């Protein structure tokens, strides 16, 4: 009985999820403790954590075929919502990405994440036979799926979520069986663009490595040259695109490398959050005792910068714990994908895993000065109803995949 239950129910990922939601509520309480407004945020987060848990469980029991069946409809619905929010939405912190319904802000872009992953998974693996991921056309078409919501979200000035939309396509193709060569062809221009931005020498070394690799892949000369050209142009054009960015975005990128360049401007959050986390030490300053958190040195620290509060008040123990629990969630998502015989659901889980990993690395990375300040939440922990429900729904789908892992297609 016990075994049968565990066979149908991934207790590890559920416990990890609950832990993170609880951690979120506790952290939001502290982060808003010294505030005059927003003191009920932790309560809202708690209530929606429970709502999310119920939704998660319900989703886990749904017939798996529903997800592929409604994938495109959900996707089109989310696109429509993204267009609607552009027209009727409310602007908060410069992002026009909110609907207000009965006092609650709803961000369609959060739901677009899950809808796009479902649609993309459905595109790659529509029925019994998957598409060939190694066909150039398949990849190009798949890109359209993510470019549409990404563009709409970009129009809302929500750069963070736009980047999120771009993070899962490669892992999902990777899982679908794209050949190492194509993976290389897709990833190498991105890597070279970053290298070129950082350091010209690094870029030239990178080009050299790409050239050598192309030689060893032994593909047609035309394709090899084409890929090399793409790599070169990625490296050279990055500076052009950088110059096209808004000044505040440029500043955010420079602030990663030199926060002291503008301590009260773009580098402010980075410096303050590093100070908060760094001063926390191994064991932290104690709950509600973080001076940086309680004195509100970091703006809106209950959303994107919630990790500062954890680092300051719970120290390395707390911060490390968060990273490890997230790793466990990601590990379980990959394991479920691996064990699932339903390829569509497996791809969904891989999409979710990428999303969690991307969010974790960018969000935590920015608070410790490794990543630019990109406004994306820490999944399950940051305050935000839309985000919380979306991530819990993802876990619900993963639970569903686990429950039905032995079913092929139904």
């Amino acid at each position, binding site marked *: 009985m016990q075994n049968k239950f565990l066979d149908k129910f991934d207790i590890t990922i559920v416990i990890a999820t609950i832990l993170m939601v609880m951690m979120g509520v506790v952290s939001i309480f502290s982060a808003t403790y010294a505030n005059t407004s927003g003191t009920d945020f932790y309560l809202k987060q708690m209530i929606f954590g429970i709502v999310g848990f119920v939704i998660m469980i319900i989703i886990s029991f749904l017939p798996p075929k529903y997800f592929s069946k409604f994938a495109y409809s959900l996707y089109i619905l989310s696109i429509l919502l993204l267009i609607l929010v552009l027209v009727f939405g409310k602007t908060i912190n410069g992002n026009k990405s909110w609907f207000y319904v009965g006092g609650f802000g709803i961000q369609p872009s959060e739901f677009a994440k899950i809808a796009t992953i479902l649609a993309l998974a459905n595109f790659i693996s529509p029925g019994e036979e998957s598409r060939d991921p190694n066909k150039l056309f398949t990849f190009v078409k798949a890109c359209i799926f993510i470019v549409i919501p990404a563009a709409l979200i970009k129009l809302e000035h929500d750069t963070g979520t736009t980047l999120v939309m771009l993070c899962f396509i490669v892992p999902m193709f990777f899982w679908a069986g794209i050949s190492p060569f194509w993976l290389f062809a897709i990833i190498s221009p991105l890597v070279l663009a970053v290298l070129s931005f950082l350091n010209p020498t690094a870029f030239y070394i990178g080009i050299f490595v790409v050239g050598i690799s192309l030689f060893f892949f032994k593909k047609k000369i035309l394709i090899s040259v084409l890929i090399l050209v793409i790599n070169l142009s990625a490296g050279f054009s990055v500076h052009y695109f950088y110059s096209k960015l808004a000044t505040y975005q440029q500043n955010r990128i420079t602030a990663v490398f030199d926060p002291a360049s503008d301590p009260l401007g773009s580098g402010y959050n980075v410096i303050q959050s590093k100070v908060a986390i760094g001063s926390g030490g*191994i064991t932290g300053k104690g709950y509600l005792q973080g001076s940086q958190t309680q*004195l509100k040195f970091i703006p809106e620290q209950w959303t994107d910068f919630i990790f500062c509060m954890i680092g300051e008040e719970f120290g390395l123990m707390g911060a490390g714990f968060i990273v*490890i629990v997230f790793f466990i969630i990601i590990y379980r998502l990959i394991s479920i994908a691996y064990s699932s015989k339903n390829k569509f659901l497996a791809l969904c889980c891989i999409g979710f895993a990428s999303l969690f990993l991307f969010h974790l690395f960018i969000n935590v990375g920015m608070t410790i000065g490794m990543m630019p300040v990109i406004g994306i939440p820490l999944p399950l922990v940051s305050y935000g109803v839309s985000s919380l429900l979306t991530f819990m729904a993802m876990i619900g789908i993963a639970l569903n995949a686990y429950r039905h892992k032995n079913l092929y297609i139904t």
Partner: protein
Amino acid sequence: MNLKARKYFFISFAIILSIILIARLAQLQIVEQKEYGKESQKNSIKKIVETPARGLIIDRTGKVLVDNKPSYTLTITPYNFDKSLLEEVANLADEDPDYIKELLSRMKGTNRFNPVKIKHDIDFKTIAYIEENRDRLKGVSYQVESLRYYPIKFKGSHMFGYIAEITEKQLDDQEGTYYKQGDLVGSTGLERYYENNLKGEKGSKLILVDVNGREVGPYNDGLNDIKAQNGSDLHLSIDADLQEYAEKCLGKRRGAIIAVDTRTGEVLCFVSKPDFDLSIFSGIPDSKEISKLLNDESKPLFNRVIQTKYPPGSTWKMMMSMAGLASGKITTTSTIACGGSFQFGNRTFEDHGAYGNINVSRAIEVSANVFFYKLSLMIGIDNYHDYAKMFGFGSRTGIDLPSETNGLLPSQQYFDKVYGANKWSQGTLVSLGIGQGELGVSPVQMVAYVSAMSMSGLYNTPHFVRKIVNPITKEEQVLQFAQRKIDFPQKYYDAIRKGMYLVVNGTGTAKNIKSSEYTLAGKTGTAQNPNGNNHSWFVGFAPYEDPRIAVCVLGENAGWGNQFAAPIAAAIMIRYLSGNTIDAYNENSTIKVHD
């Protein structure tokens, strides 16, 4: 790549990213923890400097002469000040925006959390405005400070002196780092001389602030706070009533009055006219009023009691007498023939009368010039210089005020230097004998000298402060000022004192001030002034039998008329001796005093 390989590849990727995050966290939270911990303290803890109240200045009867009143100072904290508010704040402070910008730029490189003082003594309307717009006016605030307040009916300008915002030069020159820009510091007078006693010790309060610099509570329950220590109080020997009276006596004339207790050197009143209102300098320094003071040709900021260098005229004759007696050139009974004028080389030196053969007391009584012309030549420049030096001429008396002059006491070297060795005539000595020529004395030197003469050689350093009292511990510090005995035979002093007695009570030059109640003694003098009317001097002491007060009055350009200085001196002595009740001075008195 099979599915298993993909799984492990993906998991490895996740592991690597997680390890990177944890490694970076460990770097921040273990390796760099100390540094960030310090940073975090600096960040959230704001140090607020508490300025102590300055010590009070109290007169000999316990009356407060210089007090404090609370006032509000507009400040800007550069850390969170929004430059677009500059215009508005400038308006609020009624100052030029460029001036404020300059003040702020001067603070560059220092702690941006420290508020910069923009304007002293802002009114309640401004404070109310700041309070109402607190959220918008980020970085704009105010501090409570105490300003000087003078609950007195006289001015005391030169004695008390004023406090002013510290200058950049003073900031650079200070030892240590106590003073900060915007601090008020004693600039002149007692405020400056006793700055270290009066200023107290600044305190500091550590408070926790939020990102807007708003106070959210004390740090560590205030355990690290240092309470400001109020400055110590100065207890002066000044008699407020006598001071008020003396200022009234001098009226609108230019001049100086100083009276001391002959037994101690304690200053009883101290007047320099024209004077000014000290309250101009407290609060908003009114630049118009100040420039008016600076440009006034009558130099109201000049302290005539300790900074003038006028020839003493006939008031010098006691000094000459002592030099003659002490050097053995004359005795108390020897006489010199006074024929009405004196021929030296081809010059004739005049006198106002012929007195025949007279002794030293008589010479003082009638102010016989010829007696002292001759005496001066007899004693020579070296004796002249050396004995005068003993009575404090040519050097500072050491009164507890800044910027005292040395005066000018000529010597052989002095003349050699100015005119060249042997190129100056002994005739110079002749004028010097009657206190004219290249001789410069200040009223404070004169009062100390007369006091010493009256006390048979007891030379006291004139001084204001009797004791300095810590207002909290009540600990008293009684100051000791130099006192010395100028040791000459008593009969010398007696002869000189007798001369001074006769000036008032005999047939002398100040017989008009003879008093029936107190035996006054003194000497009139007129300092020749090549630039205008002569300066009128009077030095005196009373009672003759047992001196308690010595006084010096200088009337600038008051002319021949010793009707000016002598009656004022007499009035002050009488008023003091009678316990501040008798109003002996009549401003419209027409009594002529013969010099």
